[in-house]
């Protein structure tokens, strides 16, 4: 996402509605957070939007938007048995032009972290192709909950990083659009007449107030020095060892590759995987380098807050708090990291 000069424009509420309609009309896949009520419970899913009215403007979606560029199951290869031989068929990722509309700024920032690992050495064709076809229109947050911690990881509720367009709510309705990339500019052109030039300095609705709980910049050093600290065992006691945190995480990119075949043909699939699952590192011989849940919990923390900064000069976390909300036993990452920052010298 090539950053250009940030263009500032405004949109009325009805203009946003018209923009979403224009995007859908243009044949793009428009995905955004939506409130779903089912079996008496509310949740927010990232799903195809039919109109702006569908959009959940506050609150965090359960799942992240990463599925748009890194689907939970994708085909890498297809093959057919031909006698003793194999006919390999390459696979082109099907990726319709996609707009992630109205996602939170933390989600938008996550794509850089995904890219850091998936493309650091060689380019991942599937991920790259999908990412190249994706435009991110984020809406700044005016609410934060007890799991949110973007301000602890170097961001803020109205951070425009990673967004092609960031929409900030105006105090008296409508939005300020910060158009940061050429891809964002393309949407402006598509929504002809929807965006208005800025007449005067706009009065923004206040962004969510979220005090930092710790400073992630201090973590790499602290973690590096305390790999064997009892804190990791203590924190992981209640961890059940499922993959809920990793699968809802917008930056978790670990995956598995699995073959599925019948007697005539088969396919090679990439599926999400998680370092929290025991099977992740288990060798066929039975040897497991991370045999205990505490080691796996530590790996998750270290991967994001020590190894990523060391290797990719970026955190592997955007502070969205999805992991904490999804955790069946309320492993609150913000609290755990704050504890680490506080207690590790």
């Amino acid at each position: 996402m090539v950053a250009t000069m940030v263009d500032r424009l405004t949109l009325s509420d009805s203009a946003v509605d018209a923009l979403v309609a224009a995007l859908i009309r243009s044949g793009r896949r428009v995905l955004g957070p939506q409130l779903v009520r089912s079996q008496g419970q509310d949740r927010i899913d990232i799903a195809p939007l039919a109109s702006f009215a569908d959009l959940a403007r506050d609150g965090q979606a359960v799942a992240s938007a990463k599925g748009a560029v890194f689907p939970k199951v994708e085909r890498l290869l297809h093959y057919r048995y031909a006698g003793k031989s194999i006919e390999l068929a390459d696979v082109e990722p099907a990726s319709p032009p996609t707009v992630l509309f109205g996602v939170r700024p933390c989600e938008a920032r996550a794509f850089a972290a995904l890219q850091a690992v998936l493309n650091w050495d060689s380019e991942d064709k599937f991920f790259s192709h999908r990412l190249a076809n994706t435009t991110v229109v984020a809406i700044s947050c005016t609410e934060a909950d007890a799991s949110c911690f973007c301000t602890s990881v170097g961001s803020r509720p109205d951070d425009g990083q990673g967004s092609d367009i960031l929409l900030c709510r105006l105090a008296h309705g409508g939005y300020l659009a910060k158009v940061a990339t050429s891809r964002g500019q393309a949407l402006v052109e598509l929504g002809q007449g929807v965006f208005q030039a800025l007449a005067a300095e706009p009065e923004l609705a206040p962004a969510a107030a979220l005090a930092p709980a710790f400073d992630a910049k201090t973590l790499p050093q602290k973690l590096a020095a305390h790999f064997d600290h009892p804190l990791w065992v203590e924190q992981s006691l209640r961890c059940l060892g499922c993959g809920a945190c990793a699968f809802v995480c917008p930056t978790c990119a670990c995956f598995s590759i699995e073959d599925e075949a019948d007697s005539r043909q088969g396919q090679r699939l990439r599926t999400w995987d998680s370092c929290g699952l025991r099977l992740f590192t288990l060798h066929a011989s039975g040897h497991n380098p991370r045999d205990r849940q505490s080691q796996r919990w530590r790996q998750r923390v270290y991967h994001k807050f020590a190894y990523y900064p060391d290797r990719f000069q970026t955190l592997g976390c955007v502070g969205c708090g999805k992991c904490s909300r999804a955790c069946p036993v309320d492993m609150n990452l913000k609290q755990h990291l704050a504890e680490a920052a506080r207690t590790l010298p």
Partner: protein
Amino acid sequence: MATTTPNSYKPYLMRIAAITKEAPGVRTFRLEFADAGEGTAFRFATGQFGLYSAFGEGESTFCIASSPTRKGYIECTFRETGRVTASLADKDVGDIIGFRGPYGNVFPLERWQGKHLIFIAGGIALPPLRSVIWNCLDLRERFATMTVVYGARTVNDLVYKHELADWGKRPDMKLVVTVDPGGDEPGWTGKVGFVPHIVEQLAPTAANTVAIVCGPPIMIKLTLPVLAKLGFGKTEIYTTLENRMKCGLGKCGRCNTGRSFVCKDGPVYTLADLERLPAEY
């Protein structure tokens, strides 16, 4: 819209040219490129590995066990352990399997020029060293003395039995083969004893010498102190790791150990490198 980026997950198709049964459950495949053009263009260096596919079952990671000085084919040696290796073990000569690679870093042969080399291997861990041993033998004049210490549980568990016999006869190298106590059999002319003890008895000089160690964790654990006592420096001891992997490309996260991706920064590490990593391998 087709992308121009190649699909890194697409393997070469390889024809099994020969199968050698090495030991119970252990086989060596000689693999030739089904597409001769791909074979001609293919390059690798000793120490590297690949992902071998049994189509329908998945991929498994093994080193390339042959030397890059031997052109036109690659070899791999594996033990039937899981889903993929069981399927590979069922294959016949002429069957097609997949191969992605070469991946990972290499043994720095140019650094070893003029030095004495001692290779220490245990059990099924000889294959990664076999590549570099042959590589060095094929460039024999570049190195000082070459010694191979190889141990297995029993005589039957020794791999590359024919090559061991040949190596044993070569005047330009020294081969010491040992089996665990109780693993010998009538007519066994090699040593009996654990690898670390044999190395201790052998007492190779550490001066101007590089040790390349590969074997089960317990063998490595007990051999390293012996080498330290003999005066080997931590940058003069090499090993090669085999973490579980899915991609081989530094993406899937499975082999991640500390800041290292074993598939990219490894599999070859010096002891000095290894001590900077958490012991999660």
